[in-house]
């Protein structure tokens, strides 16, 4: 099984390093043909406006939607979650609309509000480190969306079917459990 990592811009190498650590194979996705043979796609942190712009120009926007309807799995972190959301505010922008949540970009404020928290998740009993960087806020979730973790009253890790999304950056922590969880989702997808 190979995971594709969207590599337009952002911290895609941090995701690659995490997948290396847990022995998963991956390939970088920059054009539609890079999606051939991958079972799941990671949409990394970075600037969602940049990702959206380049994705659209390269025809990746439509290929990723097709990949989802063919049963592919997705894992979005921060900007990736913005791209997956059904609805985006602050300001409004287009998105893949694969995950039934509405998000507010830079929901906590600017860089000075970036921080590291410890929080509970439904993945295990011990708390997990959560690195928030100019993070979005998930304002509301649809019925089919499972909230796996909350922080300060907002969902920060959610799952809907084969789509997993966090507003924080598990790829910037040492703990591989969320990536391992995503691999199990992607594995079921194939």
């Amino acid at each position, binding site marked *: 099984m190979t995971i594709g990592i969207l*590599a*337009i*811009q*952002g*911290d*895609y*190498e*941090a995701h690659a390093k995490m997948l290396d650590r847990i022995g998963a194979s991956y390939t970088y996705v*920059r054009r539609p043909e890079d999606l051939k043979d991958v079972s799941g796609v990671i949409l990394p*942190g*970075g*600037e969602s*406006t*940049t990702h959206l*712009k*380049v994705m659209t*120009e390269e025809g990746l926007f439509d290929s990723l939607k097709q990949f989802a309807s063919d049963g592919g799995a997705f894992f979005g972190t*921060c*900007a990736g979650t913005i791209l997956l959301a059904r609805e985006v505010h*602050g*300001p409004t922008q287009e998105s893949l609309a694969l995950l039934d949540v509405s998000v507010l*970009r*830079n929901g906590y*404020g*600017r*860089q*000075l509000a*970036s*921080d*590291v928290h410890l929080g509970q998740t439904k993945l295990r009993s011990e708390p997990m480190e959560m*690195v*928030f*960087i*100019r993070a979005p806020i998930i304002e509301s979730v649809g019925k089919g969306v499972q909230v796996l973790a909350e922080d300060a009253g907002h969902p920060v890790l959610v799952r809907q079917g084969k789509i997993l999304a966090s507003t924080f*950056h598990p790829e*910037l922590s040492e703990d591989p459990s969320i990536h391992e969880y995503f691999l199990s989702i992607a594995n079921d997808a194939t």
Partner: protein
Amino acid sequence: MDLMNNNLWRVKVGLAEMLKGGVIMDVTNAEQARIAEQAGACAVMALERVPSDIRKDGGVARMAAPRIIREIMNTVSIPVMAKVRIGHFAEAQVLESLEVDYIDESEVLTPADDEHHVWKHGFKVPFVCGARNLGEALRRITEGAAMIRTKGEAGSGNIVEAVRHIRTIVSQMKRLTLLGEEELVHEAKELGAPFELIQWVAKNGKLPVPNFSAGGIATPADASLVMQLGAEAVFVGSGIFKSSDPAQRARAIVKATTHYKDPKVVLEASEELGDAMKGLDIRQLEEKDLMQTRGW
């Protein structure tokens, strides 16, 4: 190394991680910022005048007016950086109060202190600093820079200095990976950098913070060149808004930076562009006109 082992440091470097593979564009007003964002910039740098105008007009170049920076922050949703003069910690305090996302302690502005740079660990907002070689980069990191950009020669439209600086840093890092501990102590003395950081670079073969390139990038191929030489993202200053076709050139440089290893895409990005900025022959510049020699 405690200064570099805490959550504040991690989110400072974390934002730099998010900018990797992207293009940070110099802008002087909200309209330019909007053009940059629409072209796919991953951040903008707010400044009073672009480097080529500073070079042409002369005078003291200072931090941009807070009103302009605030207008830019209200216009775009991507991170907004702004420049302070080397050593001018009061300008940095002003920018921190304004809540910009990153501060560039920059040789492009007229230095305020010819001996000291800002103690950047004392700030909550992250800093980027310029460097021409490994020693300079590690001194800035010691002071708290969470991102390094090679200096190049700002406002020149000439890539030669950017190439020199990225090659120098990369080759100095490669060299360290081959040395024994006793040799590293000697290197610490030669490079004028703390032994602990020298040791870290020797072990990891890279800087402990992201390393971007700046100063002279004017074309898509320039961006591809410095990325292939080891830069992790690019800053474009005068190269965009001093060209005949800013929006199109901005888009082209973004595209070439994402696909820097793919010459066919860099070709696509290079087609149908108008004239690049004119550019300067660095050899014709006098020592006093160089910006890269500011700071140490």
